[in-house]
């Protein structure tokens, strides 16, 4: 307590013709249990209402506030200032299109991802409201949910070496999405069909295995396991294709 925090914040407003990308320094007195949510809102309300950043749930469940905090992509709302040094450098997530200052366009990126991965259950079955639900093993339901916990914050994409080098790389969030449907017995897609989506260099074979995604994921998703799982599965599918099976 009693610290004066120094914030170095990236500023650039593309809608303002005179605006130049730059770093700006703010200072703020630290209070008990302060998070970057509390700090940034105070900066905006007390010092510069033009400051652009995103928060929504402020409880670590919606994924709005991904940003680079002292060099590491993370959710600002669940970052406590007491865990940081006195100087805090905030940058917008790379890879995504900048909206202004710390705000980036994850919305459009992820909607394109839904289309690319066809992020929905593929089934020929029709819903029949007169029938009881199809049964599912609870362990399978929990396995699906485990992968469904992704909040689409974009941190894994921003931290990904491949995504930084090539625009068309799907990234861990998208590959994890595919894995979510692979483990779901309701989805009737075959391995060959998944291969069409991710069996290439912008999919699972583009991953260089640096695994910053695993280190950085604010929801601690098992991304390393999923990438390994898909790589094996798609590798086998590729061999089968080669052998004409």
């Amino acid at each position, binding site marked *: 307590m009693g610290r004066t925090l120094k914030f170095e914040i990236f500023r650039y407003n593309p809608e303002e013709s005179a605006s130049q990308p730059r770093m700006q320094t703010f200072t703020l007195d630290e209070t008990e249990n302060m998070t970057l949510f509390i700090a940034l809102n105070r900066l905006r309300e007390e010092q510069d209402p033009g400051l*652009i950043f995103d928060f929504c749930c402020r409880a670590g469940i919606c994924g709005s506030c991904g940003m680079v905090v002292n060099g590491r992509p993370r959710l600002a709302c669940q970052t406590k200032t007491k865990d940081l040094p006195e100087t805090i450098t905030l940058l917008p997530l790379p890879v995504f299109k900048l909206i202004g200052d710390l705000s980036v366009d994850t919305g459009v990126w992820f909607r394109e991802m839904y289309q690319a991965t066809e*992020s929905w259950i593929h089934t020929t079955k029709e819903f029949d409201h007169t029938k009881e*639900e199809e*049964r599912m093993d609870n362990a399978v339901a929990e396995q699906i949910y485990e992968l469904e916990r992704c909040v689409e914050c974009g941190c894994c994409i921003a931290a990904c070496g491949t995504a930084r080098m090539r625009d068309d790389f799907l990234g861990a969030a998208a590959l994890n999405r595919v894995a979510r449907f692979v483990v779901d017995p309701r989805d009737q897609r075959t391995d060959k069909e998944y291969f069409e989506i991710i069996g290439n260099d912008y999919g699972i074979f583009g991953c260089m295995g640096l695994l910053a995604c695993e280190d950085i994921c604010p929801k601690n998703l098992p991304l390393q396991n999923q990438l390994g799982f898909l790589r094996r599965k798609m590798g086998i599918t590729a061999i089968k294709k080669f052998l004409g099976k």
Partner: protein
Amino acid sequence: MYTHTSDLLVIGAGLAGERVAVESALAGFNVVCLSIVPARRSHSSAAQGGMQAAIGNCAMGEGDNPDVHFMDTVKGSDWGCDQEVARMFADTAPIEMRRLAHWGVPWNRVVPGKSTYFKGGEKFEKFEKPEKEGLITARSFGGTAKWRTCYTSDGTGHAVMCTMDNKCAELGISVLDRKEAISLIHDGEKCMGAVVRCLRTGKLEVYLAKATAICTGGYGRLYTATTNAVICDGAGNAIAQETGVVPIGNPEAIQFHPTGIVPTDILVTEGCRGDGGTLLDVNEERFMHIYEPEKAELASRDVVARRMTEHMRAGHGVKSAYGEHLWLDIRHLGDKHISTKLREVDEICKNFLGVDARTQLIPVRPTQHYTMSGIRTDKTGAAYGLKGLYSAGESACWDMHGFNRLGGNSLAETVVAGGIIGKCIVEYLQGTETTYSTAVVNAEVRRQQRRIDDLIAGRLGKENVYKVRAEMQEALMTGCFVFRNEKDLLTCIETLQGIYERSGRIGLVSNGLGANHEVAAALKLRGQVRLALGIAAGALARKESRGSHNREDFPARDDKNWLNRTLAYWPENADMPMLKYEDATPHFEIPPGDRGYGGGTIIQADPETIAAKTIKR
């Protein structure tokens, strides 16, 4: 001017909005959904606990059916709900849960065999039948006779939101984020769409549609202490009320959740208590069973929040730098339960409090949580006053919650009401063609552009939007929270009237260009103060206590005079809402009675009037 035309415009892409959209898209209509955040970040995704539906698969849900669910809902509402609507909801909910399972929701399923559960800190055993294995299971929630809350771990809202948004992607529905509707385009009779501010560029756009549905959620952010996301600011309700012809139903019906954490007011789920967590006071002793011997920690939210406040007032609160609070204790549930079934709770405690819930107590206090109040609609979801305007979900007063909604009923309402109202909108679209008046559209765009230009040029005054907003939130905290009385409400209204006047004199500190937050805050502030005045005026006028509305000076529920619903209109140029009233329900399936919890006395309604409106099913 960018102008977009569609059959249906949905404002808000949370669960209710997207469910409405899906129904229209399935019927072949062209739909656009607008959201101020990417759809999956909607506040629906924050609901941890679950959705109530009388499926009755699990052992503790055996014998459940929509009648029991209906009765719990009516009791929970303190007989303030529309019973016709509550009945439609209870009957439809099980089908909707199954539909969601078909669409992809990974509901938790019945695991056969013996297992243990906690109630009031004690351990009990239950036996799940082998023949139910793999069917959708349920957990216990406050105010219910059976275990009825379908769930996916403690991320139900998130999981259903993912499935619904996937469905929208599959159907090719255009879901556009960072678009904020700032006014409705209407001629006093018919709604033609909305003027929308793009939150990427700050530019205005026009969305015209045969039907418009407002599904923007609640307005907890009118209060300082709320569990709601920062986007739950009432902007959708405000633009409806601003038309002058659309009323807000039961503005005074605001729910306070017993367990917001101190200091950040983030919600920890009712599932904690449902799963056997207890509330402790400064002496680390349980107290709920003293007030509520039957239900204890599992009484409905309004009752628990009230009892907690009472207990703190009696000097049993824990003092802290952020004011008094009580403790939530889930230590006895054990590591496995906490790290799987209550994982989000575990994370919240670690990330925001630095507390390990396995070994430490969680500081909690009642916090604003839910708005039963909303855009008043009929049972088809059509808003009163404007043809072609609909509302569903928390933004609406449909009205299945009356004066208190049960845990698990709101998340269920988003999809159940979304489906029902979505179908009604399809019927409306099938029978409707319309014309758009360019004069009306252009006048509204000019009016909105002038508001923005005036703000940027500083022509209105020099009031700081954040200061004025904070004063509005404080006024409601002080005068219109868990307990209410005439003196404090009068002060609250007087304060809010001063704030309303100042809200018209906002001047920007920043330049207002691009994705500017200050402009967005300033544009909606006036409408927010109108909503706040509605809450306070409605609360002052209602001289009784019902559900979440507790008048210290009128502690009885008065069925004789107040078995009705408030309608708050804001006529053009008014400085106070105009209050009207209508019957709470077209008929009674369950005539007014005792809830069985919460205590309090009831001033009986005239028995003949009740009998005349009571039907048998």
